């Protein structure tokens, strides 16, 4: 029996866990981080786009040695029907700056790097170690953890739960409910390997420039969902995700959607001749603000995906994870420096600090969006994309029909599909949810 005492134990070595562990260890706290995977990143799945600003606040000079794939200079939003896409593209030379804003990354490599930084900051990192139980004292305060290794309890003043979206440990300990099918999306992705120069040629990129396509429409078969294509250095990540509850009610399979997306005439030529080397699937918290559980308690805080902190509208997850991890770490460092005990009352500081950050503010902004998109998914992901494609094609096709008649036909299509009242109400509800 080993009796070990740490200032803090961080459970999980993903974005939020690493951010928390790094923040605390670099401020001199005695930190133990436990990760069930073989190495940090081995269990972690993301698209993935990494936002520089949030990482800079943790490791300012990360660009020196972090494994980054491409910095993004072009973003394409596509509305798709079965044979076409209507798109808005934004590309700017301004994104070729000294300190670019967004990068594509490969998590297995990135997380290894991040974990090395955590260890260099002084934290003890144990992999292949699963926390099986939170240990409480007689008053219910969390005081340590048990693992699947022989040797008893490890004690700490505070436990940072960064265990990811499933949050098995926290739900088992009764700290929060397990995620519901309506609040998590299931996303699947595959990595298509292509030579660097082929990627650069197909997307019009040079050197480390990258391009992102995000697409919605009939591709998700009337479910609320989003498909993506991200360019890495020598590979292209392709994926699609929809709510778990939508998959169960429609009986659709994620891989069927991914197959269809991959074979879509707008996507197929972009990945022609590639070799698929990796498949992955992951749950993404999409419940938004209303799904955020209790974030702190006696001797514990919860961060990242485990706390459902994910902005589905802007497809931002890892930066909310990093930021919540950093803020939790800073709150704990503050309490520690004042010699304050890690009680529920004191740890409320984490929530207060998080509320002031973009994390909670953004989630409040979009608090009604998940409900709107999911309850009206057929309109937003089937009817409108089809109407839009038809309208665009009607506009492009030259066939001797007078232009005025064409426009009338398009308007008639919209009204037939959604009625005047329906169109107005969709627009108003969307505007309100966005506001």
């Amino acid at each position, binding site marked *: 029996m*080993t009796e*070990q005492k740490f200032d803090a134990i961080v459970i999980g070595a993903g974005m939020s866990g690493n951010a928390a562990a790094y923040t605390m260890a670099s401020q001199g706290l005695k930190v*133990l981080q436990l990760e069930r995977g073989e190495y940090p990143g081995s269990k972690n799945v993301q698209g993935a786009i990494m936002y520089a600003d949030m990482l800079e606040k943790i490791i300012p000079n990360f660009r020196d040695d972090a494994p980054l794939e491409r910095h993004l200079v072009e973003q394409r939003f596509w509305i798709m029907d079965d044979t076409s896409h209507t798109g808005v593209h934004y590309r700017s030379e301004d994104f070729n700056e000294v300190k670019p804003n967004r990068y594509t990354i490969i998590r297995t490599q990135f997380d290894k790097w991040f974990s090395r930084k955590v260890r260099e900051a002084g934290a*003890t*990192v*144990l992999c*292949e*170690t699963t926390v099986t139980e939170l240990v409480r004292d007689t008053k219910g305060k969390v005081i340590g953890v048990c*693992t699947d*290794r*022989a*040797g*008893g309890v*490890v004690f700490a003043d505070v436990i940072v739960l960064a265990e990811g979206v499933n949050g098995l440990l926290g739900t088992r300990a009764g700290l929060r409910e397990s995620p519901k099918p309506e609040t998590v999306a299931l996303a699947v992705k595959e990595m298509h390997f292509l030579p660097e120069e082929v990627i650069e040629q197909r997307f019009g990129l040079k050197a480390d420039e990258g391009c992102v396509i995000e697409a919605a429409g009939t591709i998700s078969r009337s479910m609320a969902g989003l498909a993506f294509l991200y360019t890495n250095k020598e590979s292209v990540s392709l994926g699609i995700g929809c709510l778990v509850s939508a998959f169960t009610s429609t009986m659709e399979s994620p891989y069927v959607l991914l197959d269809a997306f991959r074979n879509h005439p707008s996507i197929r030529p972009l990945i022609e001749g590639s070799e698929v080397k990796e498949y992955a699937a992951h749950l993404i918290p999409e419940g938004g603000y209303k799904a955020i559980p209790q974030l702190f308690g006696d001797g514990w805080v919860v961060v990242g995906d485990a706390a459902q902190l994910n902005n589905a509208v802007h497809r931002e997850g890892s930066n909310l994870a990093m930021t919540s991890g950093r803020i939790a770490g800073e709150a704990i460092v503050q309490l520690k420096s004042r010699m304050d005990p890690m009680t529920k009352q004191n740890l409320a500081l984490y929530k207060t600090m998080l509320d002031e950050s973009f994390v909670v503010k953004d989630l409040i902004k979009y608090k009604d969006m998940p409900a709107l998109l999911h309850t009206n998914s057929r309109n937003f992901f089937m009817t409108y994309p089809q109407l839009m494609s038809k309208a665009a094609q009607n506009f492009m096709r030259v066939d001797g029909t007078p232009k005025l008649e064409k426009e009338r036909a398009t308007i008639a299509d919209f009204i037939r599909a959604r009625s005047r009242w329906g169109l107005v109400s969709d627009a108003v509800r969307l505007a309100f949810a966005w506001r």
Partner: protein
Amino acid sequence: MHIVVCIKQVPDSAQIRVHPVTNTIMRQGVPTIINPYDLFALEEALRLRDTHGGEVTVLTMGPPMAEDALRKALTYGADRAVLLTDRFFAGSDTLATSFALSQAIVRVGQAFGTPDIVFTGKQTIDGDTAQVGPGIAKRLDLLQLTYVAKIASVDPLAREIAVERRSEGGTQMLKSRLPCLITMLEGTNEIRRGSLADALRAARSQVVKWSAADAGIEDLTKCGLRGSPTVVKRVFAPPSRAEKAMQIDTTDKTLRDLANELAATILTRQPALEHELTFRDGV
């Protein structure tokens, strides 16, 4: 007892691919593991230590990243890890490797106590030569017990060991004096899951890093590429076989018809076989 276990960090050969155009091995992004055969040696060493007391030192030669393999060995419960790393070692074949390792084992003996047993795995999964273990034994003048399936008994006081050795056509029961070198056969045991204390110790402890000079190696001409007479003349992917599987339509046919058709198809393609079978039936 002091036991030294030589391990090697190898690319996970299950995940290695050959480049379709250049025919070179694509090592990039292939995860590395401890050579699986070495884990049987390590577990056996740990068991002997648990029974008879003493220490287990794991030793490897490799690039700085081989530290990961050593740290993992510490997590399993090894007491000490030594990494022999130097650019002079780059490009070593089995001759140069066994030279460097044997010198390092002498140095380990001076620093931490003379080893009673040196363990290696049967062979590595990347080279598959099974030469390094015997090479070390020869250079250190150790009695060598190769392909050991079981350690029957060890008597540290009488300095004797009895083992079962798998050989062609049977199992040999061998008795030997200590010190000796053992290459351990696969499937002889199962590597343990280290305790939390072992894992914590592994995460915190420093891996001892030795350069050629630190290991007391003076003759650098015996190291690395210079000390390696082995030459890789060519690497190639074996051509895929020309024969293709043939499909027989099975719809609307009884099993008997199918069997007859199958036999007829095979025999028309292999006339020699028909002749052979007829001849044998005749006898």
